[in-house]
């Protein structure tokens, strides 16, 4: 993968209004993605890579770590608002993502305000599959860096 040398451009607070949206689609997920995330995070729960273990635990096959999807949603937010823009990020896990799934991350500004001397936004976000299953729901507070 080529590494870019120029940083991304981020949204400016002045240009964001309630209802402003951002999307990022990732996938299709592979078992290799789960294994790479296990190595990056140290989460070696066998349900995420060991087919026989996952089946014995009552699942059809291995599934993604919830924090992998949480990471994708975090990526969607920082690529939109800036790498150090987040002040709070709260993720609620609701469904499993399986190999072959697409992960559609959707974020929407719900409030623009000033606090602690910063221009901030509140954001509601979710990650859903191509079937429409909601994998995670999240809320975030950010100070856009554009």
């Amino acid at each position, binding site marked *: *993968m080529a*590494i*870019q*040398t*120029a*940083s*991304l451009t981020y949204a400016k607070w002045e240009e964001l209004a309630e209802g402003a949206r951002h999307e990022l689609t*990732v996938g299709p997920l592979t078992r290799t*993605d789960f294994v*790479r*995330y296990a*190595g*990056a*995070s*140290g*989460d*070696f729960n066998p349900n995420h890579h060991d087919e026989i273990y996952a089946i014995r*635990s*009552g699942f059809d096959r291995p599934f993604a770590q*919830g*924090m*992998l999807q*949480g*990471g*994708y949603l*975090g*990526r969607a*937010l*920082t*690529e939109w608002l800036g*790498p*150090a823009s*987040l*002040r*709070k*990020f*709260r*993720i*609620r*896990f609701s469904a499993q993502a399986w190999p072959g799934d697409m992960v559609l991350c959707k974020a929407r500004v719900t409030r623009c305000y000033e606090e602690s001397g910063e221009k901030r936004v509140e954001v509601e976000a979710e990650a859903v599959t191509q079937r429409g299953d909601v994998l995670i729901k999240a809320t975030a507070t950010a100070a856009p860096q554009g």
Partner: protein
Amino acid sequence: MPLDPAVLKREFPPFEFRVERGKIREYALVLGLQDPVHTDPEAARASGYPDVVAPPTFTRQFWHENPGNDPMPHLGYDPKRRLHGEQEFEYFKPLVAGMVLRGRNAIASHEEKPGKRGGMMTFVVIETRFTDEKGELVQLARRTLIETAAPPKAEG
């Protein structure tokens, strides 16, 4: 299983680790982050950071946690009924490579509620407080760990 009161009162010692460039790069590449501030120190410096910037979920790592410093293994949860229900982060300063983070885990809250089909559900929130070399707060991370209710036992 009811939570052990001794675990709720127990204090867990801090753990320390250096935030490494290579580990940030690996984490960013797994997630496909396009922004070079996570992978290229020159790009990070050009954007005003002292070194590459950690992605926002980076501190939820298992590498530095062990039964000596983390309450999770002591909760007595049945692994088959254990869920990571929520994860929350609060950010106080950018996390960049080269920083030495000190983390400390504590049980922030706990609750038991009746399950919809009988039995009890348990909710425990573990808060990790991350500070830098100066003792200043960098991040607070809170994970909500749920033990779902055991199915009602058959009679006999």
